[in-house]
C-alpha cells in the first residue's frame, strides 16, 4: 500500500491532541494533517514525522481561534481551501477526527465536502462534549453532527463522558488526557491495521470499497478495541469487546444489532488460527443481525505475546426494522440468528448500496432475476476499475 493512500485529518484543538496520540500509538508510518484556527494550540503539538500542522483562516482570525463561532470556523476554511486541498493531496481514504462543540469544528462539514469532491472515502470519528460543558458547545455539536453525517461515508459519534469512563471523581485535566489516550489508542491500532500488509490485509482500498459501495456507506458505526495477553487472550479479548460500553451508547447493544462488522487483529508471529476462530465465532454468535463480516490481520514482531483486536460495527439493521436488541435481551434469545435478522438480510439484498449517495435508495428497486439493477453493473460483474 502507498503511504499516501491513507490520511488522518484532525480539526480543532482537542482533536489535534488526539491526532498526536494516534501518531504515537500507530506502528505504521502515519500521514496526518492537523488543522486549527488557533496558532497557540498548534505550537504546543510536539512535531513528529509525517505529521503536519496548519493554521487556517489566519487572514480573518489572525491565529487567535474562532471564539466558539462555528460559522467563523467554516469561513476560515473556505478562505484557505486551495492551500488545504493541496496539502490533502490524493489519498484514497481519509480518517477525520473532530471534537464537536468548538467553533473550529464548524469547518469539518466543509472539509468533508472538499474530500468528497476529491473522491476520497471518509471515515469520521466525532466526539460530543462532556455533559458538564456549556450549552453553547452542546448546541454547536447538535448542529454540526447531522451535517457531518450527511457528508461522511461512515461516522461514529463518541460522547466524551463515555470515553472518560463516567468517573465523576476524575480530575478535569486527567479526564481530557484519558479521552485522548483511549481514542488515540483505538485509532492508532486501526491505523496500524490499515497501513500494514498482513496475511489477511485490511488495506485502504478494501476499506474504501466497503465504505463507498457496501451497505455501510453513510451509516453510523461504533467501535471498540481490546488488547490482551496470555494463553486465553482471544477469549479475554472477545469478552471485553462484547462488554465494551462503547457498543452500548444508549443502552442498546449496537454490536448485536450491527449489519456489518469489520474486525482487525494485530498480533505477533505467534497468532494462531484457532484464536481467529474464537473471535469470529464469538462475534458472529453475538451479532444476530449480521449480514457481512470482514476480517483483517496484521503481524508485528514487537507484538509477540499480545493480541490487539479492534471491531467496527456498522449498520444496525435491526434497529431500523424496529427490533433493537436491548442490553441483556441477547442472552435470552440464545445468540442464534433471528427471523428479524433474516428480514434485514433480505432488505439489504434488495438495496445493498446503503444510504450514502445512491439516488435510488428511496425507490422500489429494479429487480431482474436475483439481481438488483440499481447496483452498478460493473460492480455486480466484479470488474475492477483503473484509477
Amino acid at each position, binding site marked *: 500500500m502507498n503511504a499516501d493512500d491513507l490520511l488522518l485529518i484532525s480539526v480543532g484543538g482537542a482533536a489535534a491532541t488526539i491526532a498526536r496520540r494516534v501518531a504515537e500509538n500507530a506502528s505504521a508510518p502515519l500521514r496526518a494533517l492537523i488543522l486549527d484556527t488557533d496558532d497557540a494550540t498548534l505550537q504546543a503539538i510536539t512535531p513528529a514525522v509525517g505529521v503536519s500542522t496548519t493554521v487556517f483562516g489566519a487572514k480573518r482570525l489572525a491565529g487567535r481561534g474562532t471564539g466558539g463561532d462555528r460559522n467563523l470556523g467554516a469561513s476560515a476554511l473556505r478562505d484557505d*481551501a486551495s492551500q488545504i486541498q493541496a496539502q490533502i493531496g490524493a489519498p484514497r481514504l481519509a480518517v477525520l477526527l473532530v471534537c464537536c462543540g468548538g467553533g473550529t469544528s464548524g469547518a469539518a462539514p466543509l472539509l468533508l465536502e472538499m474530500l468528497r*469532491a476529491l*473522491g476520497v472515502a471518509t471515515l469520521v470519528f466525532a466526539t460530543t462534549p462532556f455533559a458538564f460543558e456549556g450549552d453553547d458547545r452542546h448546541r454547536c455539536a447538535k448542529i454540526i453532527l447531522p451535517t457531518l453525517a450527511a457528508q461522511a461515508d461512515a461516522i461514529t459519534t463518541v460522547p466524551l463522558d463515555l470515553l472518560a469512563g463516567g468517573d465523576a471523581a476524575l480530575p478535569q485535566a486527567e479526564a481530557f488526557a484519558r479521552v485522548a489516550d483511549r481514542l488515540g489508542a483505538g485509532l492508532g491500532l486501526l491505523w496500524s491495521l490499515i497501513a500494514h500488509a498482513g496475511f489477511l490485509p485490511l488495506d485502504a482500498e478494501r476499506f474504501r470499497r466497503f465504505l463507498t459501495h457496501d451497505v455501510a456507506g453513510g451509516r453510523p458505526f461504533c467501535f471498540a478495541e481490546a488488547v490482551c495477553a496470555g494463553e486465553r487472550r482471544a477469549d479475554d479479548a472477545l469478552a471485553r469487546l462484547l462488554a465494551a460500553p462503547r457498543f452500548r451508547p444508549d443502552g442498546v447493544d449496537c454490536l448485536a444489532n450491527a449489519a456489518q462488522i469489520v474486525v482487525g487483529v494485530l498480533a505477533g508471529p505467534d497468532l494462531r488460527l484457532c484464536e481467529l476462530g474464537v473471535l469470529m465465532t464469538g462475534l458472529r454468535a453475538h451479532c444476530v443481525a449480521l449480514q457481512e463480516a470482514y476480517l483483517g490481520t496484521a503481524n508485528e514482531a514487537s507484538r509477540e505475546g499480545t493480541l490487539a483486536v479492534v471491531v467496527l460495527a456498522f449498520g444496525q439493521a435491526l434497529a431500523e426494522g424496529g427490533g433493537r436488541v436491548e442490553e441483556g435481551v441477547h442472552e435470552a434469545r440464545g445468540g442464534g440468528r433471528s427471523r428479524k435478522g433474516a428480514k434485514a438480510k433480505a432488505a439489504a439484498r434488495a438495496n445493498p448500496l446503503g444510504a450514502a449517495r445512491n*439516488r*435510488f435508495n428511496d425507490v422500489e428497486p429494479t429487480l431482474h432475476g436475483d439481481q438488483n439493477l440499481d447496483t452498478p453493473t*460493473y460492480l455486480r460483474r466484479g470488474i475492477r476499475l*483503473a484509477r
Partner: protein
Amino acid sequence: MGIVLGALDIGTQTTTLVTGECVDGRLSLLARAETPTQGVKKGIIRDITAVADGIRRVREEMDKKLRVEIYDVVAGFSCGDVTTLVRPGRVSLLPGHLINEEDVADAEDNARAPEDPDAPNRLLQRFRQKYEVNGQPVATPLGMTGAELVANILELTAPRTCLDSLTSAVARAGLRLDEIVFSGIAAAEAVLDDRARDDGAIVIDFGAGTVDYVAICNGVVAAAGALGVGGNHLTNDLALAFHITQGQAEDTKLARGAAMLQPDLANARHTLRTPFSAGDRTISVHAIQTVTTERVDETFRILRDRLRESDVLPHVHGGIRLTGGTAALPLIAEQASSIFGLPCAIGVPGRNLATPLADPFIEEPYRHATAIGLLNWRCRTLAREPRKPSWLARLRAYIAG
C-alpha cells in the same frame, strides 16, 4: 383550419409540452416548451404537486409562445411495472355465416378482462394483434366463414396508483387529459414509417428513468414493455464508482461516457470540476467508459432476452430505432446492433408529418420522439373518429326533414 393539439411527456428528467395542428389527419408541429422535472423517479410520480408545478410552467411558456391556450392534452406514461399480456377473445360462428364487423367486435370484447377496481393494475392500452379463423391466422377475417373466430389482443397494464397520480397532476395543472399513451408506443408512432412497420422493427426509447421497448411486426404491436433502468442509472453508477456527486457524474457522463470502449481514448484522462480551485482531480476515461459500457450492455441484453422470450426477434427485419435522451451516448447504436444482431439507427420523428422537422425540434430530434409521437397518435385517432355534424348541419337536416 385544423385542430390544435397538445401532448405532454412527463419524463424523469424533463417535462415537455408540444403542440401541433392536425389537418386532415396530417400533423404540423407548432411549438415546444420544456422544464426540468421534479418529483419523478424511474417514471413514477412521487410528488404530484411538484409535477403539477412543472406542467404549469410549460403551459405558461407555451401560452407565451403560441398565444393559444391549451386545455386538452394527451400524455405519455412509462414505468418499470408496465406489463403486457396477450388475451384471446373467441366467438363461435354458425355454419355458412360470413364474418362481419360485429363478430370481430364481439371477439375483441370477449378478450377484454373484467375490470376489477381493487386490482393493483389497470388497463393502459389495447392493441389488435392477429385474428384466427378455425385456428388459421388471417390478416382480416371479414367475409370469411368458419366455426370459430379468435381475436388476439395485446393488453398493456400499469399500476393504478401511478396512472391516477398522472391524471391528478395534469388536472391540478388545469389541463384535461384526453388519453394516456404508453411512451414506447408514442416513440414508435413518431419514428417508424409504414414500411418499417411491415418489415418489423423495434423501437427502444432509452430515457432517464426507464427504457421502453416496442416491437412492431406486420403492422401490429407484437411486444412491448419497460425496464426501470435509464440514463440516471449510468449517472448513478459513475457517482458510486468514482465517489463523486450526482452532478459531477452527470457532467462526466455527457463529456466522456460511451456505450462501447473507445480504444483511442484508452490513456486519456477526464478532469473533474470541483467546487475548490486547486488540484483538479482526473479520472481515467477508460474507467468511465467501462462503467457506462457495462450498464448499456446489460440493459440491451435484458431487452434482447425479453424479446426472444416473446419470439419476436425472428420477425424483425427492419432493424432497431433508438430514441430518448440516452440515445445521444456515443456508440450506442453500434452496441445495440452488436447485441441484437440487427441494424440499428437513431430514430428521427418523421411519420405523418405535413412538413419536415424544423426548429425547435430539429436539434436532438430523438429526444422529442415521444412527445411528437403523442401528438401524432392523437391526430391519427381524431382522423379515424367519425366526425359529429355541426349544430348548423343538424338544423338544416331537420328542416329538410
